[in-house]
């Protein structure tokens, strides 16, 4: 044991943001997490409470830290992709796509149209799968168990399609630099179409089951309100920003993979059951996005060229010229970006990930103040964070 590093406990000063001596007579410090079932991973939140009211809340992150950025500096460019998959482990397809887009930008590789179409199809299916998980577990956090079963049943079908496509169910390693690992199998698009046809009615079913349920709307519609200017101020992206009524989508504003070819709407929060930017709005933006994803997938399958080698532009040796590139895409949780710096070698000099969940977590303290303890769960769930991506 002597050779091993001696770990020492954190000093109370470092582990707690709030000091017991600063508390008012009625106040109390309460730790929520890290092993709380509703924190979607291992997130510890320190609450300063006054009875049932949360006076202040400080999230503590880092329990799932896996050293992604340092790892990336020690393996070749292709070897980084399995690590990007593990960042946001429920939206792996989008993560590896973002990294691939960034390195392709650095190496000035143009992938062919078939690769682009397949990337759009897979990333939109992954978005549906990710939103299904977010909505299902959100319902479960609030206390509705049945929608979770329905959404996981549908998610399972997408995972089956992906397993058929590339052999893995969650961590795909499918998007390569300059191409894809496998071409679509025979009948894959037909089966995907069958899935989309039967999935669209399920969204309506989920709506009736959960979205318009009075108890659910009462729990979420007046809670965790993010006004539009504050959402912009905290650099929120994705459904969290659009829930506040701001139309911003990387797929529209800075198209990649040929998204400009497809017709789709950007759903924004309407404030149907209360003020705009509430938890319900963020929730419902995700429901609407699933409908749009179905639309995009249909068009991409329709417009996909039948011929084309998916490994046509895969470089034999990934060795970019010295330089830097920032690739960004619209991941299920918002703008995901990778900033890749090359010094001309076989190993990246630096890979920096811009995680949407980390940014979304920064606004938590702001919106948690003055809410009830039970509403903390509703707020965390509506921000749809994945701790694997926050801690990296």
């Amino acid at each position: 044991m002597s050779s091993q590093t001696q770990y020492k406990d954190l000093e109370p000063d470092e582990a707690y943001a709030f000091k017991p001596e600063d508390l008012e007579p009625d106040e109390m410090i309460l730790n929520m997490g890290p092993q709380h079932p509703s924190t979607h991973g291992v997130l510890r939140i320190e609450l300063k409470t006054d009875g049932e009211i949360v006076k202040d809340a400080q999230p503590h992150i880092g329990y799932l830290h896996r050293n992604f950025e340092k790892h990336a500096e020690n393996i070749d460019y292709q070897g980084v992709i399995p690590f990007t998959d593990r960042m946001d482990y429920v939206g792996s397809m989008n993560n590896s796509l973002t990294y691939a887009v960034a390195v392709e930008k650095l190496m000035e590789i143009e992938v062919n149209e078939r690769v682009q179409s397949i990337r759009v199809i897979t990333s939109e299916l992954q978005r549906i799968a990710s939103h299904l998980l977010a909505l299902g577990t959100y319902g479960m956090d609030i206390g509705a168990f049945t929608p979770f079963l329905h959404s996981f049943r549908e998610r399972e079908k997408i995972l089956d399609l992906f397993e058929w496509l590339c052999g893995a169910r969650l961590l795909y390693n499918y998007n390569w630099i300059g191409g894809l690992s496998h071409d679509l199998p025979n009948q894959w698009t037909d089966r995907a179409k069958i899935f989309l046809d039967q999935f669209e009615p399920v969204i309506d079913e989920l709506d009736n089951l959960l979205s318009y349920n009075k108890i659910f709307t009462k729990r979420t519609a007046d809670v965790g309100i993010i006004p539009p200017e504050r959402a912009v101020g905290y650099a929120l992206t994705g459904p969290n920003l659009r829930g506040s009524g701001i139309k911003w989508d990387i797929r529209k504003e800075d198209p990649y993979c040929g998204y400009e070819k497809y017709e789709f709407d950007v759903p924004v929060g309407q404030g149907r059951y209360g003020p705009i930017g509430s938890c319900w709005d963020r929730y419902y933006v995700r429901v609407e996005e699933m409908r749009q994803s179905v639309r995009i997938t249909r068009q991409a399958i329709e417009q996909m060229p039948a011929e084309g080698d998916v490994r046509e532009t895969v470089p034999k040796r990934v060795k970019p010229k010295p330089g830097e590139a920032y690739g960004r895409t619209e991941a299920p949780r918002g703008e995901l970006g990778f900033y890749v710096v090359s010094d001309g070698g076989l190993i990246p000099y630096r890979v920096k990930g811009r995680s949407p969940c980390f940014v979304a977590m920064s606004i938590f303290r702001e919106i948690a103040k003055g809410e009830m303890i039970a509403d903390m769960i509703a707020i965390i769930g509506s921000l749809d964070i994945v701790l694997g991506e926050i801690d990296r």
Partner: protein
Amino acid sequence: MKEYFADLFAAVTSIAKGMGITLAHLFTKNETQQYLSEENPGARWQSVIVPEGLLQDRSRMRLHVKIEDCIGCKQCEKVCPVDCIDITTEKREKTDAPIFAADGTAVKQKVVQFDIDMSLCCYCSLCVYPCPTECIVMTPEYEFAETVKSEFLYRFAKETPAPPEPPKKETSDPVAAGGS
């Protein structure tokens, strides 16, 4: 007061609506499947969306090495992002009888050690693609749970050198004991 009762009414009706959906699903086919039931032992997950038998076509589960075909080029070892492959080779004598891999490549190196620690493997299958003789493959075999961590060290080489003498005290680190 009026709002209170309106809310109550809305809650009851919306719950009834949801219960109606649940009730309708009571009469549909079961979605869950029994894992290894007595009726069908050895049954695997039957996907509703993927045609039967195609799901495992590209499955990436346990690694397998056809060691007769290995030419000891160590490309899989180099590309592995988690360094779970450990290969040692020795040069074959010129006087030895020539050996060829299944695709006709002459085997010039004797592979004396080919260890894969499956507890470290991240199932990315990056090692499979560069192999010139396609001797390292991922199989659809997924049931290989073990109770001891050292059991995950798969030794594929036929002429594996004797493992180093274990230290007198039992070490709790099987990776270090395996020599990787």
